C-alpha cells in the first residue's frame, strides 16, 4: 500500500550509459514531480507534470527526459550519464495547487562511475 514508489532504489552505472527510473503513485493525484538532491542534500525541482502535461521544466539538460504515460506514472530517462548526475532522485505527487502537500517517494540513489 505504498503511496509513492520508485524503482530501482539503487542504480550504479558507468559514464555514458542510458538509464531509467520509474515512479508510480496510488494516491489519485493529478500532478507528479521529479526532484534532484545533490551530495550537500540540496533539493531542487527538475520537472512537474499535471494530467500528463509538462508544467515545470527547470533548466535541466536535455539528456533528461521525463515521460508520463498516465496520471499515476512519471518516469525519468537519462541519456549519456555524467559523473555530475550522481545524486538522489525523488519522485513526488500531489493534487494540483500551490497549497497542496507533496508526497515523496523513497528516492533512487544514482551513482555514476
Amino acid at each position, binding site marked *: 500500500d505504498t503511496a509513492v514508489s520508485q524503482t530501482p532504489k539503487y542504480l550504479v552505472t558507468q559514464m555514458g550509459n542510458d538509464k531509467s527510473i520509474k515512479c508510480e503513485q496510488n494516491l489519485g493525484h493529478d500532478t507528479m514531480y521529479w526532484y534532484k538532491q545533490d551530495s550537500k542534500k540540496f*533539493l531542487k525541482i527538475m520537472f512537474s507534470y499535471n494530467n500528463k502535461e509538462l*508544467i515545470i521544466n527547470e533548466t535541466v539538460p536535455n539528456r533528461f527526459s521525463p515521460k508520463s504515460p498516465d496520471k499515476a506514472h512519471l518516469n525519468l530517462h537519462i541519456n549519456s550519464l555524467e559523473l555530475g548526475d550522481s545524486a538522489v532522485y525523488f519522485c513526488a505527487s500531489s493534487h494540483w495547487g*500551490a497549497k497542496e502537500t507533496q*508526497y515523496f517517494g523513497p528516492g533512487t540513489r544514482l551513482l555514476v562511475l
Partner: protein
Amino acid sequence: AQSVTQLDSQVPVFEEAPVELRCNYSSSVSVYLFWYVQYPNQGLQLLLKYLSGSTLVKGINGFEAEFNKSQTSFHLRKPSVHISDTAEYFCAVSDLKYGNKLVFGAGTILRVKS
C-alpha cells in the same frame, strides 16, 4: 523569485531540551510555507504547513511553527526533543504565481544527543 534561507546547517541539542530551527523566505506575493522532515535514507515527509489564518501552526510529532509576515520567517519549534527527532529538516515555500513549484531551503540537520 522565491527563495528560502535556513540559517543553521546543523543544530545539536540534548534530549528533552527545546529546539528552534530557523527559516526565512522571500517572495513577491502571498506564500504558502511548509516544513518537511527527512530521516536517513528516506524520502521527505510533511511536518506541517501554513496556508492562511492563525499564524501558529501545529504539526505531527509535537512540532509547531509560527508564521511572521513582517519578518518573513517561519521558524520551527519543539518544546522537548527526543532522540528519534534526529533528522534533516527542510523549509519550503510555494506561491500562486509559480503554481505547484516548491522551493526548498538547504536543510538543517537536527542532532539530538543523550
